[in-house]
């Protein structure tokens, strides 16, 4: 554009500098919520340095958060695309039961091949449920809330049928040692979860797949007109959410050595809470995996801190409930100020 004599208007040509980037980041929800998280950690560590800040306790917080974080990464994608997935907890249980039975029947308790077989079964089950959700939403045009509410019930019922209503407690030793093992003092589960979150964030923020997720959530009609296969993309996102639930099922099996039939009813709501706390818009189009990571850890740290302080842990539920409302309210205020709609 050397031939253009007129000076370019401000901000038209100059790429955003570091200062601008930092300023934008500092006004974002993940940043505020990150500050809240840091403050919570500092507060509990100051009051109870030997218990809260002990390596044992920190390890526990991370372990508790890891399964939920994997689910929440999937929920981040779904919600940025303007959807919902209430079925992930049930899909996790179903995939875990199916994998545990296959490993029990056909596998060898010490063999890593058995574990690999379990992963294949769990991932296939999770993906199948996710595809079913996506099919109901994009083909039958049943709303995401209802479709995934339906498969939430169906998948849990299916898990009870497969297991005759009682938990399967025979899990291959090879999987249990993976679930309890660590590398350089960091549990494998945490390492795997961290890698998943990192990959999830990179794909969301840096690739065409991630960009389409934002576009579809921000304006599906415009995306369709721009030639994006909106239904196909949504189908893939629900499949991804199911796949991640299947993956989380194996981590859960490894950690608890049981299929935890009763243990995951709240997972979808906890995942949605985490995603919303991290600044992802309920109406789609905005959000980040970094925010979701912060959003997973705030309730986890709060619950753990309350227990250590001797406060009834039920208070955490009360506090988080109100914090979610406050976070969404603050977000609306911020948007109302900065943007004309």
């Amino acid at each position, binding site marked *: *554009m050397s031939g*253009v004599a007129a000076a*370019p*208007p401000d*901000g*038209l*040509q100059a*790429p*955003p500098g570091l200062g*601008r980037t930092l300023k*934008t980041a500092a006004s974002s929800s993940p940043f505020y919520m990150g500050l809240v998280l840091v403050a919570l950690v500092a507060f509990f560590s100051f009051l109870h340095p030997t218990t809260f800040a002990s390596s044992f306790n920190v390890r526990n917080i991370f372990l508790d958060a890891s399964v939920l974080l994997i689910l929440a990464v999937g929920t981040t994608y779904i919600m940025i695309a303007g959807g919902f997935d209430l079925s992930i907890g049930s899909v996790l249980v179903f995939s875990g039961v199916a994998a545990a039975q296959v490993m029990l029947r056909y596998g060898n308790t010490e063999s890593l091949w058995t574990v690999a077989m379990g992963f294949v079964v769990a991932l296939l089950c999770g993906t199948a449920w996710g595809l079913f959700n996506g099919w109901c939403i994009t083909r039958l045009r049943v709303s995401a809330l209802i479709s995934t509410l339906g498969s939430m019930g169906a998948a849990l019922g299916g898990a009870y049928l497969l297991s005759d209503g009682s938990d399967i407690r025979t899990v291959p030793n090879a999987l249990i040692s993976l679930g309890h093992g660590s590398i350089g003092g960091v549990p494998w589960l945490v390492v795997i979860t961290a890698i998943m979150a990192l990959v999830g964030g990179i794909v969301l923020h*840096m*690739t*065409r*797949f991630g*960009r389409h997720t*934002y*576009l579809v*959530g*921000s*304006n599906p*009609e*415009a*995306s369709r*007109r*721009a*030639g*994006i296969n909106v239904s196909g993309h949504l189908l893939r996102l629900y499949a991804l959410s199911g796949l991640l639930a299947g993956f989380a099922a194996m981590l859960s099996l490894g950690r608890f050595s049981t299929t935890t039939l009763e243990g995951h009813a709240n997972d979808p709501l906890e995942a949605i809470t985490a995603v919303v706390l991290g600044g992802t*818009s309920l109406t*789609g*189009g*905005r959000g980040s995996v970094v925010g979701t990571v912060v959003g997973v850890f705030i309730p986890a740290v709060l619950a753990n801190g309350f227990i250590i302080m001797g406060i009834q842990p039920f208070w955490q539920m009360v506090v988080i409930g109100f914090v979610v409302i406050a976070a969404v309210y603050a977000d609306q205020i911020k*948007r109302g100020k*900065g*943007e*004309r*709609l």
Partner: protein
Amino acid sequence: MDAAHAVTASPRADTPIMRAPILRARGITKRFGHVEALRGVEFDAHAGEITALIGDNGAGKSTLVKILSGVYAPTEGTIEVDGAPVSFGSPADAHALGIETAYQDLSVCPDLSPSANMFMGREAVRPGWLGRLGFLDNASMRRDSAVAFQKLKVALKDMDAPIASLSGGQRQSVAICRAAMWAKRVVFMDEPTAALGVVQTARTLDLVKRIRDTGIAVVLISHNMRDVIQVADTVEVLRLGRRIATMPNKNLSVQDLVGAMTGALDAAAGLAEPEAVA
């Protein structure tokens, strides 16, 4: 056929323009079940000209635009681009031939940046294996968008914030610039000023003229006759699914246009009223 001829003859028919149109449609008919939305429409658009497409509600304007931009397939009729017959299976086919559409609304994603909107559905990826993995080349998209905005003299308040923070007129500019950036031949603009105030409307019309001056054909669909008279080079009038007049924009008045749209001119000239849809 003879009926179509009768109504095509405009009361103001000047000397026929002997230039090859860049986009030419003949005998376009579109039926939705029993409803005949278009009944043998003719349409021409010329490079470097603004062709206004006007007509009352139900005249078939949006159906015609959807057919010419690949959204619908015509029931009958032919479309030619640069003299070669084409058929569009989807908007992507029209895009491939350099035909773009800027819709009145619903065409931008408010949560994303201007450059993400300019490249939506056509994102640029990095060279090499990162590109094969789908990694975006945000720097080049931002640069190319800035160049496109500058070429059309659109100064956005912020190139990096979500466009929800821009005014309605600026958001409309993004949608129009996107169509212009990708169009090699024809841009359709469906009511680009319908939602805008006076100042923003004037700016948008200037933008439409600048796009025309880049040498592509602009087709402006509008209800606002003053806008049409202000910018159009040629006015094509549809009524009841047919083209009933093609008028060069010379000394046209709002009354002329309204008369042509509603049939008052035909009646005055003693032409047959097109028969109502059976």
